[in-house]
């Protein structure tokens, strides 16, 4: 049963990623990206990471993807038939990805991974919250600083230049 669900979710994830990489229409790519994000969230649930799965849906699907669709619509002349999602240099890229994927696949399949017996999955939120306020307090605060900088940077980059006219 677990195997069946895994193959289903993994299939959705990889198939959507294929759609993102090969679709000729940027809008279709954006929607395929949603499939990848949801599939990854499903994988996270199967990996006993309930909190991360919810954060994934909220931040990626609810935030980043909507932002991307906004950008697609804003930078596109919708009436334009020539949908500009060109791909160039497909063959060299394919070669690079194949070589790299071969190396990774070999590493994954031949390494003797040290795994432990699987304990029962626990709700992770409590442990994550405690980690953020004890062991990872400094990275947590730095993360808030990074987000603030990104916020200000995005505003500065995308605002209209107001010229001081007389």
């Amino acid at each position: 049963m677990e195997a069946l669900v895994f193959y289903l979710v993994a299939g959705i994830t990889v198939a959507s990623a294929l759609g993102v990489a090969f679709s000729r229409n940027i809008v279709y790519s954006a929607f395929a990206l949603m499939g990848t994000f949801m599939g990854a969230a499903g994988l996270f649930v199967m990996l006993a990471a309930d909190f991360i799965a919810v954060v994934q849906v909220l931040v990626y699907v609810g935030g980043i993807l909507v932002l991307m669709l906004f950008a697609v619509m804003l930078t596109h002349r919708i009436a334009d038939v020539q949908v500009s999602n060109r791909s160039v240099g497909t063959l060299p890229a394919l070669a690079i990805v194949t070589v790299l994927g071969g190396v990774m696949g070999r590493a994954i399949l031949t390494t003797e991974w040290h795994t432990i017996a699987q304990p029962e999955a626990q709700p992770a939120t409590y442990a994550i919250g405690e980690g953020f306020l004890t062991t990872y307090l400094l990275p947590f605060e730095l993360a808030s600083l990074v987000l603030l900088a990104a916020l200000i940077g995005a505003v500065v980059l995308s605002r209209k230049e107001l010229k001081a006219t007389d």
Partner: protein
Amino acid sequence: MLTIGLTHYLIVGALVFGLGLFCVLTRRNALGVLMGVELVLNSANINYLAFARYGTFSYDGQVFAIFVIMLAAAEAAIGLAIVLGIYQTFQTIDLEATETLRG
């Protein structure tokens, strides 16, 4: 094949990573490149959580995954702001048309 283990998740992560890299390398639409970057970050998260579950069963991997998601959000916000800036300047986001800095 029927018991799902660490390698299964790692293979899914590797596949998504490869597709993301392919996307970054071949797309000439700046937004397509950004989507490829999101795929790569997602594959990293899959690996983090797989190792957290099967390697140690501690929550450190999950905390790292949260930081990755945070950075992805910041990256998307800044990246899209830059893309919109490029669009205002060049009227296109085709990366081959925006090569003013090429020496």
